[in-house]
């Protein structure tokens, strides 16, 4: 129980690494930086593994999630936010994914970033990110979770803007932070509402309070406490997990170094939104509306991002939109109540998307920094390990069995289809869109593979010396590839001869819900089988189209783009959403602030009034001064005026009736 009792060790190790590298790293040789950073993360991973082991023991004995308060962080009135850490099955999944994938990416980075300036800085940020991410997943209350939540945002900001000399990079970092802040705005209000209602933000106490409060489930259209709170929390999740309408930062975030994209913008941080929704599932389950909104937003984002991904030419941008799309998938799962499936997809996605990004990084590395797929092609023979691992990742994400993506996606689609007992038209629609998205995913991912690795070589060999990456980079690829292959089997359902360990494992957190109650076991199996087949067909269709368009008829895509110029341009320009935001929110706000608030309200109106009063006083002073004409005759008149004044004042009670004024 040592680690569990000192659970803070897990997040603290990366923080230590960050601190050492951050304060002294500038003087360290790269090797020392490596040692510090890797050992911090590695030890953290080991500690996490040990912690998980201890937790499982603990759980076996008590049947309770583990939670421990370490110190009071914020205390005011009856509000308390402690530095309390919590370990339950959901945490276990997250902690292992974060530390595990994180560690791999650290290894990868030593190779990838080896020749970059600011090496220590990079690892400082990366370790810092690990710290905050671990806080996020280990937190036992919303406030501490929020610490990690904002902290990873900060790390993301720093890492996106790592190449701060590039304006686009610093722009992207800033955008990421600010858009996240918009989400956080909702998240904070959500917390406040929860606190106001339940007087606590501690997960354990809060969920107990919810259960014991006996507050009714809120049906569709009822905007009760749960609905509002959940929607507010979901706003935060939208920001962090890049859902419509706050997804805009994620594609830009590709300005960061590729390992960052892999770690933060694919595997871990962006899934925090999903994690929060899953964590708050008890609340969401109290509100029909919130769930519907989550699923619709998720589904819409999935499709929307996938369509954009179809035409992107930057290899990382494709992956970025893919990530957005897959995150939509996860929300779709949560929205239809299949939280387990969502978390499962979160995990598998972490494997294969990290793999894809790292592989893409390897490609970019090989191409000497080139990211545009139009200038690649035919790389498969030259960088074999990268090619094969990336292909595995692609197959996984495309949803071909028996790789990880298939199982998780299948679970989600099944969940959607059977939502509302399987008779819900809404669920069917969601399913349909999900399926379409799956096909699109398969298409753009294979498009990526074909454009990059197959076909004609479209780069100049004299300028680009394609070379395979060092093993420090390839090892993580291989490991992740393996995980992408086998990861899915953890939750392989009965249909595939598995026992769905994953769902069972998460059962203490998400009580197993008979998704398709009312259906007989056999009918359920049949349905599952049918849906699986349909999914495979969809994926295959995507693959086929991609194969046909990019390998068989390489001229065709341009032709199609030409004939559908409007659509193509819209997609290529990401539906002009950035421009829309710019035109409707950002520029008007800046204009308003500068030209109205500052220059008119502040300078003219308020300060103008203040100075106007001063000038008025000065003008009055000049008037008074003018009476001082220097002419004694005028002065005599003034004395007479004064005399009249005084006499009139003293005789006022008698003058008033004389002047016809009567006292009322």
């Amino acid at each position, binding site marked *: 129980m040592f680690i569990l009792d000192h659970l803070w060790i897990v997040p603290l190790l990366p923080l230590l690494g960050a601190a050492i590298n951050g304060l002294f790293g500038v003087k360290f040789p790269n090797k020392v930086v490596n040692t510090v950073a890797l050992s911090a993360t590695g030890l953290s991973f080991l500690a996490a593994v040990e912690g998980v082991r201890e937790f499982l023991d603990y759980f076996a004995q008590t049947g309770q999630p583990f939670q421990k308060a370490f110190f009071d962080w914020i205390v005011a*009135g009856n509000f308390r936010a402690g530095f309390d850490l919590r370990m339950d099955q959901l945490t276990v999944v997250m902690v292992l994914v974060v530390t595990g994938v994180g560690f791999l990416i650290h290894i990868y980075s030593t190779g990838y970033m080896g020749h970059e300036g600011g090496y220590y800085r990079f690892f400082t940020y990366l370790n810092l990110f690990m710290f905050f991410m671990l806080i996020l997943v280990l937190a036992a209350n919303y406030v501490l979770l929020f610490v990690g939540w904002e902290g990873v945002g900060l790390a993301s900001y720093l890492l996106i803007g790592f190449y701060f000399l590039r304006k686009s990079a610093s722009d992207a970092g800033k955008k990421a932070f600010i858009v996240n802040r918009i989400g956080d705005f909702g998240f904070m*209000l959500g917390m406040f509402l929860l606190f106001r209602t339940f007087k606590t933000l501690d997960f354990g106490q809060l969920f107990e309070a919810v259960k014991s409060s006996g507050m009714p489930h809120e049906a569709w259209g009822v905007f009760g406490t749960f609905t509002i709170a959940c929607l507010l929390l979901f706003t935060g999740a939208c920001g962090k997990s890049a859902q419509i309408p706050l997804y805009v930062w994620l594609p830009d975030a590709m300005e960061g170094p590729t390992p960052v994209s892999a770690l933060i913008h694919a595997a871990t941080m962006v899934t925090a939104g999903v994690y929060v929704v899953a964590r708050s599932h008890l609340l969401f389950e109290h509100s029909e509306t919130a769930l519907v909104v989550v699923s619709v937003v998720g589904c819409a984002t999935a499709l929307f991002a996938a369509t954009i991904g179809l035409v992107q030419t930057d290899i990382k941008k494709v992956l970025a939109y893919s990530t957005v799309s897959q995150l939509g998938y996860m929300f779709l799962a949560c929205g239809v109540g299949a939280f387990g499936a969502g978390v499962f997809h979160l995990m598998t996605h972490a494997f294969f998307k990290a793999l894809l990004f790292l592989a893409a990084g390897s490609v970019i590395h090989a191409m000497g920094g080139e990211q545009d797929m139009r200038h690649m092609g035919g790389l498969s023979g030259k960088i074999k390990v990268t090619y094969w691992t990336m292909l595995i990742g692609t197959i996984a994400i495309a949803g071909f069995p028996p790789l990880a993506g298939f199982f998780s996606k299948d679970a989600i689609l099944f969940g959607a289809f059977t939502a509302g007992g399987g008779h819900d038209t809404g669920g069917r629609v969601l399913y349909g869109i999900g399926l379409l998205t799956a096909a699109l995913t398969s298409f753009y991912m294979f498009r990526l593979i074909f454009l990059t690795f197959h076909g004609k070589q479209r780069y100049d060999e004299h300028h680009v010396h394609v070379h395979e990456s060092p093993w420090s980079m390839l090892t993580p690829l291989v490991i992740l590839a393996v995980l992408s292959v086998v990861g899915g089997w953890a939750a392989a359902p009965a249909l595939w001869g598995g026992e769905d360990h994953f769902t069972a494992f998460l059962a203490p957190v998400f009580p197993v819900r008979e998704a398709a109650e009312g259906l007989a076991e056999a009918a359920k199996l049949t349905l599952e089988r049918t849906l699986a087949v349909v999914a495979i067909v969809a994926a295959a269709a995507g693959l086929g189209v991609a194969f046909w368009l990019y390998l068989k008829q390489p001229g065709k895509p341009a032709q199609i783009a030409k004939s559908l110029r409007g659509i193509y341009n819209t997609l290529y320009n990401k539906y002009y959403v950035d421009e829309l935001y710019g035109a409707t929110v950002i520029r008007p706000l800046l204009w308003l602030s500068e030209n109205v608030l500052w220059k008119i309200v502040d300078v003219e109106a308020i300060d103008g009034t203040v100075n106007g009063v001063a000038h008025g006083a000065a003008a009055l002073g000049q008037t008074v001064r003018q009476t001082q004409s220097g002419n004694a005759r005028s002065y005599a008149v003034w004395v007479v005026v004064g005399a009249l004044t005084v006499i009139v004042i003293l005789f006022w009670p008698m003058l008033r009736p004389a002047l016809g004024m009567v006292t009322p």
Partner: protein
Amino acid sequence: MNVNLALPMLTLFPAFGVIALLVLRGDDHVFIRRMALAVSAIEFALSLFLLPQVPVGSTGYRLEINVPWITSPPIHLHMGVDGLSLFLVLLTTFLTPISVLASWNSIQHRVKDFFVALLMLEVGVVGVFVSLDLFLFFLFWEIMLIPMALLIGIWGHERRIYAAVKFVLYTMAGSALMLVGILWLYNATGSFDLVEIQRQLQAGIVELSPRTEMLLFLAFFVAFAIKVPLFPLHTWLPDAHVEAPTAGSVILAGVLLKMGTYGMMRFCLPLFPHASYKAAPYVATLAIIGIIYGALVALVQPNLKKLVAYSSVSHLGFVVLGIFSFTVVGMQGAIYQMIAHGISTGALFLLVGMLYDRRHTFEISQYGGLATPMPRLAAFFLFAALSSLGLPMLNGFVGEYLVLLGTYIVHWQWAAWAATGVILSACYLLWAYQRVFFGEVTVEKNKTLPDASERERFILATMSIVILWMGIGSSYITHRTEKAAEAAHEHMQQWDVGAAPAPANGNVVTLERSSNR
């Protein structure tokens, strides 16, 4: 009659330093600086001894001294600290040596006068925070004006005289009314003693008619609101900040503004609870406007220092909002935000001052890409900016969060509006940071700027440690300020006799005015 000389000594200690400075060698600048640093550092050390004097859970005022000073009208030398004033005093005594250090090289002209003014300012500010006699309070309140005006007016930048005069006139306009209010109160109660007046008002010995109470409230409130500054009384602030030397800005933002919010909490609420209730919606509206407005105007400032100045308007809006939420949580948050803002905005002003020392301009367009020549300064700047924008685990978050939470509990709309400030603060700070530090170095001169010197690093590291500590160990402070916040809250409750017995802290406070008063 209590005679505990600790607080008068603490208040007057810098004045002794001033006398020493005046009497001792006047031409040796190094000596003067060391002397000023020593005095302010000792003052800080002395003030640390206050900490154990206000233990967790202690109620009322500690280290009280109460001796008659003027017999008619009865004015007493009445001082005391509680949780609220304790940390504001500490903040003052902490920021003063920092300011001395920050002025080490940048002040080369009339060095002695500068440090004399700075130390006198400390006397005034500490005095304000420990005074429990309204007259004494007013006295220190006014005393601190002149050194501050001198700091701005002599060692400031181009429009320093305009700014200094504006600062004084604005403040005097408010304080003159406050004096009338104080006297009115004296007329009603026959006392200048805060504790005594409070007792009489609460016991119903003296009853103020609603109109009287409201007028009195306004007399005090306007003076405080100008100091805070609350929108729309804020326009002195940007000018004063931009023109002031670094040390002046640090003290101004760090401590002087807090005098306003301190006053609201110490005087407006306990003395005029009904009027406070009635005014709360309006005050909160102004505070919220201030939060958003300050942030939006900060967003478009081409002048870095002005940007930080407007950010103060925004941040102080949170404090006022917290106070007028009338919840323990909100008030605790307000107190915390006062201290946190002092540190983080102080740090920002220090950093801006360091940039100014190097380039003699505040124009953002004159900078850009500074992270390359001066990575350390850039790092510290980011740290301070993050604390200012309320990143959790740094000091700014705690106050802001508690204020919003406390406000939300009673008026969710207020909190929702105010929370937009959280978004906007990220916008203006990060944008400014980007424009100053990121990108290629565009101005040739900037390429060779030196990074933070050892002195600067010491200052910044100290500030950073405090920022971090306050972000993590906030309960150390909140435990000690709790009783003060509860007391302020209770006064509001006690007066609300018609309402149901007060629920525990942080709960909804009914705002209906009781009918039988």
